[in-house]
């Protein structure tokens, strides 16, 4: 068995064992629990009132600009990862490169901030 398999196999087995444990609980619940559904019980819970309004309410997503920023910055973070691992061999050159990269990120963040992209209501 190759070294790669030896290192990664336990990872998947942890999932497998976890799935087995979940299955035991789930089956336990399935066989031990009662099943008496009735229309009242199956209503969406709204503190005892009858459910009000149609299903699939439309909601205003106030944070969509932040969500786009999140995608951008998450990718930038991914760029920093290989640098962080190899940093020790790169010396001052590596440091200055990353200084420029992070400075660019900070300027971008400052711009978004100034433009109000980080405000909840705008």
């Amino acid at each position: 068995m190759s070294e790669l398999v030896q290192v990664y196999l336990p990872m998947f087995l942890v999932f497998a064992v976890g799935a087995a444990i979940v299955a035991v609980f789930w089956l336990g619940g399935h066989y031990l629990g009662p099943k008496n559904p009735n229309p009242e019980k199956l209503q969406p819970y709204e503190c005892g009132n009858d459910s009000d309004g149609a299903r699939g309410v439309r909601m205003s997503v106030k944070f969509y600009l932040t969500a786009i920023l999140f995608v951008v910055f998450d990718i930038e973070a991914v760029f920093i990862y290989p640098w962080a691992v190899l940093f020790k061999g790169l010396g001052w050159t590596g440091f200055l490169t990353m200084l420029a990269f992070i400075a660019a990120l900070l300027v971008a963040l400052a711009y978004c901030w100034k433009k109000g992209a980080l405000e909840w209501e705008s």
Partner: protein
Amino acid sequence: MTNDPWLRALLEGAAVVTALMTAVAWITWLERKIAGRIQSRLGPTMVGPFGLLQPLADAVKSMQKESIVPRDADALLFWLAPPLTLALALGTAAVIPFSPGLLASDVDIGVLYALALSGLLSFPIWIAGWASNNKYSLLGGMRMVAQGISYEIPMVLSALVPVVLAGTLSMGGVVRHQAEHGWFVVSAPGVGFVAFLVFLLTALAEGNRIPFDIPEAESELVAGPTTEYTAIQWSLFAAAEYAHSLLASAIAATLFLGGWDGPVLPPAVWMVLKTGALFLLITWLRWSLLRLRSDQLMSLCWKLLVPLTLLLLLGAGTWVTLAT
């Protein structure tokens, strides 16, 4: 230990998951005891000595209750969300180093793997919120997403500080480096300590613990994404939440507090002690603080923690370059 690599891998996997589930069961007891004491109550006392058998009784009880799938719910997604949440939480356990020999999988990308799996956690919670077809659940799910896009970047960047200091993404490697050069929480003047605080804060947000239990918010949203969940499905969610808090403590202990490193006592004991201490801190905070609002969390993360962690990275870089 056996020499057959397949059997060994299976044993390690089983040992890690079983240990974690057992720990989760009794940590619910511990949390209820502490919560009780903080609120001048006794906590569980009836089942077994000091209420110690309470978690077992709870598990059996929740299996005997009826699992309800509400009328308008998306049944498949509704069923899938709790096991997914627990699986993601348990999967992280594979890369937690308990001692030099007890580490299920010391992959080169351990830190990335742990962060990636715990980062995925907001998805099954959003799925639960959406599939329930309940307005409270939906609002809770939305808040979970809002929370996810806030804490994730400072968390990922603060976890990079120990990676820069150690020069490796392997969890075992980070601990070995700390055993030789001192724990990151005290080394690299101030940088490690601040990064530790940021990581702990974002870990609270990730685990939906007070002061960041914004998606659940039981005083406004009933129970947020888990409103419609009953019986064993709800228990799976609860177990996942505790497993997640415990693993977040373990990751923080590994990255910043030197993991298994420590004098006299065996390595695994040190790891358990450090993880336990961090979990107690989280529990203490939970029963002492109030909840923030979504926009407050967003402001905190984007306007303070993101710039701060970027500067911390540069600080760590300066420190490493000067030291070599």
